[in-house]
């Protein structure tokens, strides 16, 4: 009977394990392998072993350094702002009342749009003034009597513009996760704090924050990894420009593979990207543990 259960169980998990092995674990292993070999896009077979040559080439490539710096800049802009905004909104819509349900839906709606739709739409909204008119944002600035801005056409403004757009699109998702966390904090703790004479801010710092610390750590990790994946927005809206100011790591990998046709180079960049994601996940685990110790 037990032997039969084992056999059936293996049949149940086998298709999933084979497919995930083939399409997740095998590519990860083959990426590490290819990163140590010479291989062109057109080669059917892996070329000769070349040690750390691809990694040295990536590291010495000013394009890669720019891409890494840009991606880090995007994450530094997006992660704290988006998390803080999501937390503030979650606390707000957690209040009882009819209007909160409508507000939740409105804040969540942009997350259902595809990155493609958002990129196309905001490209138009960000349009600088020209003969045919301007985008909505410059129209708004004009109505307020403020000078028009170049937005995506300026190397200094382009990345903050992409960050603002991404926060608008993503904040509703983080808000929903944090809302679920807030709703699992016991009401008794708030009552006890109120009896102790804690004010609103005091209750937030001493009850809410420790109560949702594990959720907050999870949200921080998801947001950071989402930010590091930056690709579609600059690819469609700026092409990585102006002057390389928005070229991201994923775009570098994409161009290394399909424009420069160097799979070894692309995989070496991929391995570095993999390490960055693993570090973020590791840090989050640490945070998660200390957050659990808090509660």
């Amino acid at each position, binding site marked *: 009977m037990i032997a039969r259960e084992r056999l059936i169980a293996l049949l149940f998990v086998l298709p999933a394990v084979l497919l995930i092995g083939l*399409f997740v674990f095998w590519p990860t292993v083959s990426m590490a392998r290819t990163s140590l070999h010479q291989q062109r896009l057109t080669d059917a077979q892996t070329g000769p072993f070349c040690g750390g040559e691809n990694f040295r080439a990536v590291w010495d490539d000013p394009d890669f350094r720019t891409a890494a710096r840009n991606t880090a800049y995007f994450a530094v802009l997006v992660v704290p702002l988006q998390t803080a905004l999501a937390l503030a909104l979650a606390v707000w819509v957690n209040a009882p009342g009819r209007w909160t349900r409508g507000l939740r839906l409105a804040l969540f709606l*942009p997350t259902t749009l595809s990155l493609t739709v958002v990129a196309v739409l905001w490209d138009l909204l960000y349009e600088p003034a020209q003969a045919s008119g301007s985008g909505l944002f410059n129209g708004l600035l004009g109505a307020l009597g403020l000078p028009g801005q170049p937005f995506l056409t300026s190397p200094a403004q382009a990345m903050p513009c992409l960050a603002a757009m991404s926060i608008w699109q993503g904040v509703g998702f983080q808000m929903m996760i944090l809302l679920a966390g807030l709703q699992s904090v016991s009401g008794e703790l708030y009552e006890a704090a109120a009896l102790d004479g804690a004010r609103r801010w005091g209750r937030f710092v001493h009850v809410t924050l420790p109560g949702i610390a594990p959720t907050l750590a999870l949200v921080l990790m998801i947001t950071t990894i989402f930010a590091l994946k930056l690709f579609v927005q600059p690819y469609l809206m700026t092409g990585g420009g102006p002057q390389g100011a928005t070229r991201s790591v994923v775009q570098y990998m*994409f161009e290394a593979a399909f424009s420069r046709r160097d799979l070894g180079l692309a*995989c070496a960049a*991929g391995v570095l990207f*993999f390490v960055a994601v693993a570090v973020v996940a590791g840090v989050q685990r640490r945070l998660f543990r200390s957050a659990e110790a808090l509660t």
Partner: protein
Amino acid sequence: MNRGTGTSRLRRTLPGAVAAAVVGLLFLAPVLWMIAASFKPESEIHRDVSSLRSFLPAPATLDNYAAVPQRTNLVTVLVNTFLVVAAIAIGGILINGPAAYAFARMRFPGRDVLFLLLVVSIILPLEVIVIPLFMTVAGFSGAVDLVGDRLFALSALSVPFMAKAFNIFLLRQYFLSLPRSLEEAAFLDGAGWWRVFWRIALPNAVPAVVTVVLLDFVVHWNDFLWPLVVCTGQDTRTVQLALGNFFTEPPISWGAILAYATLATLPVMLVFALGQRWIVQSVAGTGVKG
């Protein structure tokens, strides 16, 4: 609770309601403007951007929507995307469902190690392995002679995403939350594992199944990067890829682009509107929250 009289209650809740309406409308403004502008003649889209009139499609026209099928092979693109998303969702249930059930209820050697490996892989984004995944799929390109270009491309778009660690995790959590008594009664009646899974466990896990299908639908309907990597022909493009091409290939006609963007968004909003109740229920059931 002291609820107070009608007017004082209104006075207390009104500022909150007004603030909520203002913030909600500000958030929706870009989407509302997109829908309004998709009904405007091309020459009007950049007009009046500094006033609220910009949000009203007057004069309104359907020309932009009529232009979409002329600019792109819309029907082929929609059929492609529906086929891909349906294959991922249906294949996903057939593959992830039994696996999740085995992890929840059955004992077999290596179960915990295997499950840990799956959970760890959840964190790995497609973007990290997109190039080697392309190489893996390209390794199967010999099959093109066998099945033809279009079927190969549609398979390349769907098969790699059928088995998904996150979906196995979500379904397993839900199976664990079900009472064992129903399944035990079926075993006493002489049913085997396969039968108990299909007849008892899966029908009782509908909220989780619906959630997984909806998430797959949204993620793959909206995906741009993977179609960009694997689709080379006009007749294998998906909705997002066609929108991207529409946007980058001259002549740029904003009205038609916005009409297409609106059309591409409708199915996802519909799916969310229909599925919201199930998603909340299944997240509550899995204990993923908090």
